[in-house]
């Protein structure tokens, strides 16, 4: 994002977390409230990024391991004659999906709580900031008119 820009910039989805990173603009006359908002957003972003990157990596890794172990049990190799990666069909993968979901259930519960907390806090702060800015603008308008 260019240096002269006054807004935040959002990027393409991250390879591991699938979340879109945001670069926050720090205005020189940032009020304490605005700083709180920005920091809350940064913290939430970092927290989300950590969680999903780790979670998705774990998923892919465990999926590979599962496929490998199943293929071995069936006596097959990871790649067949044509060099294509061997995969299991959906029904066989279903066991893995079920397993993975139940293993990570409490992790998700904790994350849900954190995410909802972050989301509400950030939105509430955004509301406060918007209100403060609106009042400031009105005062400025009044001053200019006089």
């Amino acid at each position, binding site marked *: 994002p260019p*240096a002269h820009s006054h807004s935040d910039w959002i*990027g393409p989805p991250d390879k591991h977390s699938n979340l879109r990173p945001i670069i926050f603009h720090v205005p020189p006359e940032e009020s304490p409230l605005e700083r709180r908002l920005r920091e809350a957003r940064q913290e939430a972003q970092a927290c989300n990024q950590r969680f999903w990157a780790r979670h998705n990596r774990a998923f892919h890794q465990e999926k590979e391991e599962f496929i490998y172990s199943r293929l071995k049990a069936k006596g097959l190799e990871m790649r067949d004659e044509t060099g294509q990666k061997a995969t299991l069909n959906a*029904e066989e993968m279903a066991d893995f999906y079920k397993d993975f979901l139940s293993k990570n259930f409490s992790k998700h519960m904790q994350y849900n709580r954190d995410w909802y907390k972050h989301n509400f806090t950030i*939105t509430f702060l955004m509301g406060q900031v918007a209100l403060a800015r609106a009042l400031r603008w009105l005062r400025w308008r009044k001053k200019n008119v006089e």
Partner: protein
Amino acid sequence: GLFVWRLTGTGPRPSPCQLLPLCQAASHRLATFQYFSFLKRMYVTQYNKDLSQRAKPKSEPVVSPFHELQQLDQEKKVIHKISPIPPVHQPWPETSRRNELRGVKSAAQTEGSVTAGRAESTEGRQWKEMKLQLEELPGILARLSKIKLTALVVSTASAGFAMAPVPFDLPCFLLASLGTGLASCAANSINQFFEVPFDSNMNRTKNRPLVRGQLSPLLAVCFAASCGIPGIALLTLAVNPLTGALGAFNIFLYTCCYTPLKRMSIANTWVGAVVGAIPPVMGWTAATGTLDAGALLLGGILYSWQFPHFNALSWGLREDYSRGGYCMMSVTHPGLCRRVALRHCLALIGLSAVAPVLDITTWTFPIISLPINLYISYLGFRFYKDADRSSSRKLFFCSLWHLPMLLLVMFTCKKSVLEKEDKGDLRGQSHGRAMEIRLP
């Protein structure tokens, strides 16, 4: 309407000329992509259920991974983008107000080199300014409110209205439809507001406005409030309080029960089925002002329909659900998933047979609807037995035309209002008027 899918890439941008060729290249691809997903989205469902999409190939981001500090990465990313073409000029000063960003120079170089970005294909892979683009706002809001799903919800509510055994009142019908539509928009917006990180991780939902940063969460909430509050007020004051209460309850059920429950227990499917069943009940109560057996029957039919529809759909999304942490029957209790789907297909047959008993339709309705009900039950049975991708898809696609057809048949078999005179159902209308509005 197709306008909803109008390209967002063609509007004027804050840093115009540099990115325009980029956008044009992107927009062509995006056009086909979005048009295609529009066609796919034609098969849309009730507003509590996930949409059906053939899994789109997961697009690999061209840029390198995101680092916590974003500095080096920014540089790397940008240099990767501009590699074939040497930097044209460096208009920007080295110093940056943002100490996070050391890659300002490189960023500037990107800005300068116009044609470099051919490597970047679609819009979603560029860095975009997080400023609300007013000209894109209608499209963004349409996607936020899941406008097509809302349209379907409104049509089921209209079906409920039409089936009510009272003379047709056009103003009331329009107000009820509008109110229901607004309530649905509000509920869908709040749902998206709650689900941003999860939506980003699922193929089907990763292009939603909040995920892409096209509008802020605050705006989403304000939009929801500005739809929901007038919508419910309209229903309560201009139609009747019962409809308003049902609307408010449904919004609550969808946003505060179904959405969080999706990640906690498989019970979410049943809650979601109720959410889908309420709109026709709302239509009925809007027309008659009372919650009688007919309303419940219509609601029951839609409730039962949700199961074959959603369970079949969720069968193909198991991987995404598992990774995303969604508790769905298809993942955790696959046998139950298929049993429930079959059970409710059969229930549809039963419910259709009850309709004439309650004087909503004539006896021709269960007879005419029997073939389609039997067909969906057959597909439900096949899904139960085979439990594979093709049977789930067949069942899902059947459910898409089954419901409209069932409702249509129901409407054509509706018991004429005139025959109900004796039962005193008419709301103070003259006999003459009733004669004119008599249905075929």
